[in-house]
């Protein structure tokens, strides 16, 4: 039970996502799933068990195993969405979406506009992202590509609770939604357990609820700086915040769980209070979502800034595979903490100069 008295149970993110699809499919017969290996009897429910058991409940007609044809998967989702269905398409790994970029960028994103508002494209494209010791072609976080494309909503939850509520909302949304899921947050079990996964077995309501797309969530209130992060990085930022607290630094952590639409009001409000912004993203530094948010903060709250906006991100290289290399590549708690301390240091110098 949660505070409101609704029944809850502990769920990992994979289970929460499965629950979201189950609820959406039970409440709306036009919802169907398509992707590779998602419903095969005796199979594994997609790359990360998310759709396990759904084919048994809803039948192979609504849980469609496709050929390895990413372009056709997304294209068929676009066509089905325009014809009255609400398809949920899955890329087995987010990296494979690049095989389908025409359908995502030229078709899904533009059909509403090109029809002058006559058609709707209510589809979800689920992308498992994040480095997980699989190397350069199975670990990218591609949200910036989609954030740059008008017409796509971009969701990237960090918790099972959000994952469920946001996926239900995404499926019921009348726009195409790119839905990123971090592989280390799925909470896989047994042989499906990811080496470096983190446990998020939090209480999640059993029932039907939606989390509005276009909102961010303040995960930790603080006064000295604002740390903005998404997906896995939210958890690393929270760990860094605890460490900073030991040094008397009070960090606010905002989970940027949706990039499009982007809740800049909450972000600006936080940065105006703290005067400092640190953006943490697993994506490559250059042209990442952090760059966009930094520019918007500078635009809207420049006079409130007491220090330069800083970013901690993956370097501009493909993602390496060896555990030692990958650990060095993905922003970790040490790097986030150090960047925060440096930001405070720069700020205090700035304040010193200003007061003279």
């Amino acid at each position, binding site marked *: 039970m949660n505070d409101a008295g609704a029944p809850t149970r502990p769920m990992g993110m994979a289970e929460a996502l499965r629950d979201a699809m189950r609820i959406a499919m039970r409440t709306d017969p036009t919802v169907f799933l398509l992707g590779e290996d998602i419903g095969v009897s005796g199979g594994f429910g997609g790359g990360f068990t998310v759709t396990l058991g759904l084919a048994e409940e809803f039948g192979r*007609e609504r849980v469609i195993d496709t050929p390895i*044809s990413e372009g*056709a998967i997304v*294209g068929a989702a*676009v*066509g089905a969405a325009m014809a009255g269905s609400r398809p949920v398409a899955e890329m087995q790994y987010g990296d494979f979406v690049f095989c389908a970029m025409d*359908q995502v960028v030229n*078709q899904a994103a533009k059909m509403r506009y090109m029809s002058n508002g*006559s058609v709707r494209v209510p589809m979800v494209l689920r992308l498992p992202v994040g480095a997980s010791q699989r190397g350069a072609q199975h670990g990218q976080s591609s949200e910036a590509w989609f954030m740059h494309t008008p017409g796509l909503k971009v969701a990237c939850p960090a918790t099972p609770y959000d994952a469920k509520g946001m996926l239900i909302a995404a499926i019921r949304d009348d726009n195409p939604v790119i839905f990123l899921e971090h592989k280390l947050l799925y909470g896989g079990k047994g042989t499906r357990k990811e080496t470096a996964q983190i446990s998020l077995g939090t209480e999640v309501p059993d029932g039907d609820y939606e989390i509005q797309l276009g909102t961010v969530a303040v995960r930790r209130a603080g006064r000295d700086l604002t740390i903005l992060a998404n997906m896995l990085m939210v958890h690393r930022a929270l760990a860094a915040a605890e460490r900073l607290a030991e040094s008397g630094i009070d960090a606010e952590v905002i989970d940027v769980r949706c990039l499009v639409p982007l809740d800049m009001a909450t972000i600006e409000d936080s940065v105006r209070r703290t005067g400092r912004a640190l953006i943490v993203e697993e994506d490559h530094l250059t042209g990442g979502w952090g760059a966009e948010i930094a520019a918007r903060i500078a635009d809207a709250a420049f006079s409130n800034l007491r220090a330069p906006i800083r970013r901690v991100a993956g370097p501009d290289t493909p993602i390496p595979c060896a555990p030692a290399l990958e650990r060095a590549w993905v922003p970790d708690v040490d790097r986030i903490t150090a960047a925060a301390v440096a930001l405070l240091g720069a700020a205090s110098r700035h304040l010193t100069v200003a007061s003279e």
Partner: protein
Amino acid sequence: MKHPVVMPHLGATGGDVKIVEWRIAERDVVAAGAALLTVETDKSVVEVEAFRGGRLTGPLAPPGSSVAPGAIIGYLSDDVEAAIPVAHVPPAPNAGRAAAPPISTPPAPAPLSQEVRAARIMVRLSRVRDSKDAAGFVERLLEAFATMVLIRRYEEHLYQLFLQGLVPGTLHQCQGQEAVAVGVCSALRRDDLVYSTHRPVGHLIAKGASLEAITAEIWGKATGCVGGKGGQMHLADFAVGAMVSNAIVGANIPIATGSAMSFRLQGLDRVAVSFFGDGASNIGAFHEGLNLAAVQDAPAIFVCENNLYAASTNFALTARITDIAARAAAYGMPGVVVDGMDVEAVYAAARTAVARARAGRGPTLIEAKTYRYRGHSRGDPGGYRARDEHAAWMARDPIERLKQRLVGDFALPAAKIDEIEAKAQAKVEAAVEFAQQSPEPSPDSALEHVFV
């Protein structure tokens, strides 16, 4: 009254165009559509036809001079226009210079393939079935004829306006391919969906789209079918199931597949049609889409308009097969070759495919062998095509063929044909008038409809 002849926008760069020669002497009379002059652009040597009939009057820009597109180079006065028969057959490309060696053997008149023969038989059968309503059959044939004439008149009229610099943006025209659009769409219901291409006018008109709205769209007006956001390559009329036409080659193949899958899931007996060209059969979306449609038994019909050229590249340079329909076998669906210059054959093949799809037996690939008389897009004179190839296809013109059949087999009076043609011309001119008189879209509307 004198009508200025302007230098058309025919080159690749918009630079000056050189006048090679006037094909008509000053003060001589020319028919609309006849060769008026030969020019040399940065692309090639091109024949420019008269946008209207009349007497050529000066001052004429002299041969050898270079002139900017849009500049007035002479006049056509219409004092004699009424006496000039209108030629609706466009000239062969490549005029004014030696014909390039043919890349492919001119295919026409080809012996009928087995599939075409089969299609013909089906037409005869359908005729027998309709025989209790022979008048109904002729009525439908007439309707198909009228639609094909409307498409031809529309495209030709726009071409003439384009030559005068009066059409904004780009143009991809379908003269010669009318029988494919009309044959297929005649086999469809209003609630079936059609996904067209960057060459959409035939498909749109055949599906019953508003002529005014698509014309206004080409003119970039607020009254356009998609408010000016689409342009010539993105025409639509959702009320008749004509979805936004797609300018990414082959992209509509998986999309039509998805719509078809959705219909099946919803328990509807609607079908989705994807039109595409020969060039699209070499893109991944074709192969992925057909395979998915086949394995899903999707009620989709894939109509390949094989007009031999992907822009300027002959299909023979891009594939080792002759019949694109053969690729259907690789995906386990029927592949049908049909004479795309014969509307009855196309209709018969489409009807079979649609019936199959509606019955839940899956998709069909129809390859219609056809030809586009004009270039790939505006300003493409088609210099890569041999004159005799062009002539051979035009000798099989689908509209002329149907006209002869209507007059010959069904004793249709010539006056009826004239009436149909006049009506089509009037419709086209009214649509253009509507487009020209329509207001520009408000700049603010550019920001609308990104999201629901």
